[in-house]
């Protein structure tokens, strides 16, 4: 749980740094105050990722750019948090796996992934799960090999089994922490 809190604080700090300078002190205090009122580490991380999303949207708006479709934050000691804002933050888990496979760094990137999934599993409702399924279905035709099949702990799985494998893996990792 300490790891989740630590990750949430790092993401929150980086989100504040992304903000335009003239807004940093106001939101730093407001977002930290919000953070302080949350007791569940998962909710804290969810809040921090939301603040990151807000910061990237604000930065893009000031530069006259369209709202970003996603963002990536480097978290020292953990890896990177990458998110697709159009489909919801939780898609990050799937991106994390894809990147991990590509870079052969499953463990470090997945650390971020399972932390994030633990934050969102209990927050996800039926509608959101449907949305995620639709998003993943939309990725399939564009698959460049990463999503068609994958290996996990020496076993080859098909793309369709990805959610189950991830859930198994992340739950196991979370239990280790508990």
């Amino acid at each position, binding site marked *: 749980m300490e790891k989740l809190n630590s990750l949430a604080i790092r993401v929150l700090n980086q989100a504040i740094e992304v903000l335009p300078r003239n807004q940093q002190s*106001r*939101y730093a*205090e*407001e*977002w*930290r*105050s*919000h953070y*302080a*009122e*949350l007791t569940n580490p998962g909710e804290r991380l*969810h*809040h*921090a*990722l*939301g*603040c*990151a*999303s*807000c910061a990237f*949207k*604000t930065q893009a708006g000031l530069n006259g750019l369209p709202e970003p479709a996603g963002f990536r934050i480097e978290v020292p000691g953990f890896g990177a948090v990458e998110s697709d*804002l159009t489909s919801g*933050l939780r898609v990050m888990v799937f991106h994390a796996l894809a990147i991990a496979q590509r870079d052969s760094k499953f463990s470090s990137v997945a650390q971020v992934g399972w932390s994030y999934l633990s934050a969102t599993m209990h927050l996800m409702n039926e509608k959101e799960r449907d949305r995620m399924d639709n998003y993943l279905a939309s990725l399939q035709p564009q698959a460049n090999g990463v999503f068609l099949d994958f290996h996990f702990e020496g076993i080859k799985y098909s793309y369709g089994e990805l959610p189950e494998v991830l859930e198994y893996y992340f739950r196991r990792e979370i239990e280790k922490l508990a």
Partner: protein
Amino acid sequence: MSRKLNSNIRLSGPALRMLKIFIEHPMKEFSGAEIAKVTGIGSGTLYPLLARFEQERWLTSRWEKIDPSEEKRPRRHYYKITGHGQNCARQALTELQTDFGALGWKS
């Protein structure tokens, strides 16, 4: 479904959920954390919404008057609906009700 009002206000589902609590408690001040807890809106949606509504003068805000070092926590930032905001929100909700039937909101 969303509906654009005036210049920059877009009444999306989360915006309506947020307005609902302000309309139901026009004299009460809410922090971002309280709004998130009651409405279930995530921070990534909530804070841009609050900023936009404040910019359009539907909401006003102030810092909590405490000494953070004494309380050992950061100050909260409180939001409250303005008279202008109440008028605009009621008008918007009336238009929505006309278009889509009663929403079951008390005004």
